[in-house]
Each structure stands twice: as C-alpha cells, then as structure tokens.
C-alpha cells in the first residue's frame, strides 16, 4: 500500500516537474495551475505514503535513507506550498519542484525495507531532532531555488535582457525578502536541531559532541547560514551575495545528507 502511494506521488511530482520546466520557456496561467494541481495531488499521496510507513514502523519513518529522503522532500513541499499560498509566484515551482523530484527520485532507488530501530534511536528525541533538522533543511532547499531565481533575474536586469522569462520572474526585492524569511526560519530550526541532537547524544552515548562527520558538516552548514544572517544584518549585504551563499549553503546540506551518510563513517549512517 505504502509503496503504491509512494510511486503514485512520485509520478505526480514528475508530472509537475515536467510542467514546471516547460513553464520556464513558455508560461501561461493554465499550465501554472496544472503544475500546482499535480504537485498538490503528489503531496496528498505522499503524505498518505508517509502515514502508512508510520503505521507499519510505529515511529516517524526516517530511519532508512529511503524514508529520510522522502521525508526531506515532503518538508520541502510543505514550505513550497506555504510560500506559494503567501506570494503566488507560479514560476517558483520551476526552481523548487526539480529539487523535490530529485529527492524523491533518490528515495525511490534506495532500499525500502523497514529495519528494526536500533536501541539508541528508540527515543522521543528521534521525532523532535529530525523534524527540526528536516524542516530547517527544507527551508534552505527552497532558499536555494529562490537564490537561483534571484541570480537569473539579476543577470537579466544587468544585461538588459528584459523579455521572456524575465517577465515571469518576480521582482528582486520580493525574492530577496523571501530569501530572508526562509533563512530566518531555517537557521533557528537548524540551531535547535543541533542542540537537541547534542542533548540526545548525551542521553544515548554520554557525550554532547563527538566530532562525528555529520556533526562537523552540520556545523559548517550552520556557519554558512549564520554568516548570511550576519552580513545581512550588520553590513546590509543583500541580493546577489546572499543568493550565492544560499545556493552554497544548500549544496553543503545536500553533501551532508547524502555523501556523509554514505561515504564517511558516521554515527548518523543508518541503513
């Protein structure tokens, strides 16, 4: 059941992504609505899939890389829809849906077996720590898409290429404002995730900080976003530099999520 729901969700996300890419070249109100409809249907099915995994395993389904990627994607969709509802920028889908679909795709190729939770992970911290971390990272994922939109629009304005996609992208100020909101949402979530992680580590392993590779890379991520907020608030830097740092930040998030979990020895490697 869960598998069928997941595959259906993936199909809908795929459809929405295809429409969103076409949007880049020739947008219309209808295609934009269709994209949101497909993404919305994908989201409902995806939610059902996660709930069904939850019912089987009895805990928030994030213990395997398959579940973790899928849950990560789900959090990005939540933030995407909240922003879409608030700002109504259809073209945003073209920059966020590919990220969502990529996460779902990587989830779909990873083993789906539900392994029994190792004793260390059996804790109420599991839900709190991971939910904070994923929501924070999801905010950064959307900020990544918004950052690309900013760089494109900035490039169009500077080079006087003011037709086509330029017309469909929103103003620089709106993009910068959304970026700021996302980072001010994501940064405290990441901070809390690191704190709860430390508390949990003390609880489980008797140590707050063990220089585990995941911990180190999370710290690097934290510094990047702290830097973005710092230069924005103190020096008033905004726009292009912030957009580029947001893109870099999310690339590090992805590195931490995939590469560290797989290739570097880490206490966070599960499957």
């Amino acid at each position, binding site marked *: 059941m869960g598998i069928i729901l997941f595959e259906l969700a993936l199909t809908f996300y795929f459809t929405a992504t295809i429409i969103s890419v076409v949007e880049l070249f020739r947008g219309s109100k209808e295609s934009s609505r269709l994209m949101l409809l497909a993404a919305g249907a994908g989201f409902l099915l995806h939610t059902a899939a996660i709930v069904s995994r939850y019912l089987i395993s009895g805990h928030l389904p994030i213990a395997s890389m398959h579940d973790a990627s899928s849950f990560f994607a789900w959090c990005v969709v939540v933030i995407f829809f909240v922003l879409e509802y608030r700002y109504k920028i259809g073209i945003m889908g073209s920059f966020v849906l590919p990220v969502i679909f990529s996460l779902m795709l990587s989830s779909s190729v990873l083993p789906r077996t539900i392994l029994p939770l190792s004793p260390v992970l059996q804790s109420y911290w599991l839900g709190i720590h991971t939910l904070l971390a994923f929501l924070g990272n999801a905010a950064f994922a959307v900020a990544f898409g918004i950052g690309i939109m900013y760089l494109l629009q900035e490039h169009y304005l500077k080079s*006087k290429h003011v037709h086509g996609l330029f017309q469909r992208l929103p103003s620089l100020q709106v993009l910068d404002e959304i970026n700021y909101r996302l980072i001010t949402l994501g940064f405290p979530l990441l901070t809390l995730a690191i704190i709860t992680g430390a508390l949990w580590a003390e609880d489980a392993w008797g140590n707050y900080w063990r220089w585990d590779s995941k911990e180190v890379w999370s710290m690097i991520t934290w510094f990047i976003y702290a830097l973005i907020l710092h230069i924005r608030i103190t020096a008033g830097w905004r726009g292009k530099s912030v957009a580029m740092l947001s893109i870099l930040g999310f690339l590090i998030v992805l590195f931490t999520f995939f590469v560290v979990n797989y290739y570097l020895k880490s206490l966070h490697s599960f499957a």
Partner: protein
Amino acid sequence: MKILVIGLNHKTAGVEIREKLAFPGPKLEAGIFGLRNIPEVKEVALLSTCNRVEIFACVSSASAAADKIKDFLASFHEIERSSFEKSLFSHSDSVAVRHVFRVASSLDSMILGEPQILGQIKDVFDFALSKKTTGVLLNKLMKKAISTAKRVRTETKIAENAVSISFAAVELARKIFNGLEGKSFMLLGAGEMAELAARHLVSNGVSNVMVVNRTYERGCELAAEFNGKPVRFEDFPHEMVNTDILICSTGAPTYVLQKEQMQKIMKERKHRPVFIIDISVPRNIDPEINKIENVYLYDVDNLQDVVETNMLERRKEAEKAETIISEEVEIFTRWMSSLDSVPTIVALRQKAEEIRVEELEKFRGKCPDLDEGKMKAVEYMATAIINKLIHPPTAALKEDTEDRDELIAMIKKLYGINGDDNEE
C-alpha cells in the same frame, strides 16, 4: 438589412482632413440625429476620436446609404464632398463586422494594443443607446465588439509590456522593487521625456520626490509640480543615499556621477538597490556604475531596445488576436443570416392565422346554432391543424443550412407570401 461602416482613420486620412470631419462633443448629438434621419439608415452609431471618425450603420441599401452619408458629412461640416471622399473607407457585411471588432480590440490602433479605444467604443454604444439610434442589429454588433475586445485582451498578451520609454522605465522599476509605494525618487535635470517618466512613477505610487536642477529656481518650480522637494545640485550625491530611483537628464557634457562616488553611496545606503535611468545625451552617468552590485543603470538606448522588443511581442500577439476575431466574425455573421429567415417565418404565421380566422368565420356563418362549448372545440381544432401544418417549414427555416436563401424563396412561393419591404 446590411451593416455598413464608413469613415476615415489615421491610416486613410491626414490630420487636416480628420479634424474637419470630426464630431467633437457638442456636435455629436446633432451628427447622430442627422445620420439617423437619412431614410436608408435604420440604425446608427458614431465614433469620433482624434485618430478616427467612423459611422456604424444598419442600412437597407449599402450603396445608396453610403452616398447619402457622404452628402450628409459634406453638408454638416460645410466642406466639399470631393475634398474628403478619397480618404473614406467603406465596408459592408462581414468585412464591416471584422473592421468593428478589430477597431474595438485595438488591432487597428496607431499604437497596437493601446487600451483607450475600447473605452471609446463603450462610450459610443452608451451614447447611441441613450439617444435610441440603434436597434437589434447594431446593439448586438457593439456588444459583440466589446466582448471580442475583452477576449483578445485576456487571451493574448497584446496589451502587456510597455511600448513607450516612460512606461518601460516604470515596468523595469517594478522588477527591481516590489511595488513603487514608499520608494523615493530623484529627478536630476529636466526635459520632456524625463518629466513624463517622472509623472508615471509618481502616479504609480512613488513617494518622496526630490528635484535637482543647476538653477535652483527652476528646480523649485519643477518640485512644486511633483509635490516634491528641491535639492541643490551640489547636494545631490549626498541625497542619493536616500534615493531608490534616479532619472537623470541634464545637459552636462561629462559624467555627473562617477563609479567611486557611487560605490561610497552604496555602502552608505547599506546596499539597498538603486535604479538609475540616464536619458541624457551625452550620458551623464558613468556606465561603469552598472557593474556595482545592486545598481541597475539604463540609458536611453537600453530603454529604446526594451520598447522595440515589446512592440515585436505585441505584433506576434496580434496574429493570435486575428484568429480570435475571425472566430467571432463567423459567429456573428451566422447569427445575422439567421435573421434573414425571420420575416418569412413571421409572414408564414400571419398567413396561417389569417386562414384560420377566415375559415372560422365562415363556419360560424354556416352553423349559427352551435353552442359555446362546441364552438370552442372547433376553434381549438383549427388552431391545432394550422400549427401542425406550419411547424415543419418553420423548423426548416430556423435551421442553419447553406441553402437557406433557396429555402426562403421556395417557401415564399409555395405559400404565396410576398417579399417583404426591407429586401433590396
């Protein structure tokens, strides 16, 4: 009944003829009643703008009506008919319908896609309605013209994208700033184009206007015009710290703003974005300034390019609009030709009714002692027979077929109906 459009516009006549044939405000009523009084003209509406004078009419005979309308124009405006006759165009039937739809949709306008014409068409319609000079046909034509124009507006992008330099500036500003409300704006120098752009910015919500001029008095005058504050020329770099949009149009032979200066300003304003429009020739703002982050500099050529690209886009959209118009013309002409059979249907019913009344009279004469109830039954039967007999031909006439004209002629012949007076 035929639809006739006769008139002239910026494509067929120069302004010296257009102004002579125009019907400005007070003359409009006299004009429309004068036209209505022509015997061949059954319905009429009159459009008179600076670019066109057009008469939309419903006439019994196109050629006769056109001739009389020309006479009327000559006598009304007290000019020789020969002096404007060559500048007139005249369309009838579906060509006329297409013309009206194209005018309303702004495909015939000097600036393709400009929005005013639709409002003018609406005014023409309202005026004609209030003076009761239109009827079924023209009312439908005008309503359809308006709805077609709206369709063109929503289904194509013909009215999108600025096609004037000052609007292009406003549009660009909107892509940098999220709305212009609360943004501060500085006008450096003066000049027609700069002032027009300034006016557009102010009407789009820009607040906090500053005006800089080499001669302070001139600056004060302009500032008063825009409800802004005058700034002395030497103070302008300092005020740039609080300026989001700058329009520059001075006669200075060199740059009045250098890159290093602007870098300092940007630091002071905490890198808040600035939009600079330099429409002076020679340019007054160092082009290198565009390389500074969060500064967007456009010169007059850049804006001209934007306008030209947008115009090209509009022309592409106009092709889509023509397809929409063809569809609507088709629907309208089909409706019009369905009107052709209406007089025949009416005549057929009349004929049947006459027969019914006549025969009932005869019957009553033959059977005078029939009681009221039985007489009612006979009347009922007569009505039923008549209705059943005329139902198939009526239904056939209402049907939309290719050979309707032949059918009309045949039914007229079969039932002995004479041609109606409206036909040519």
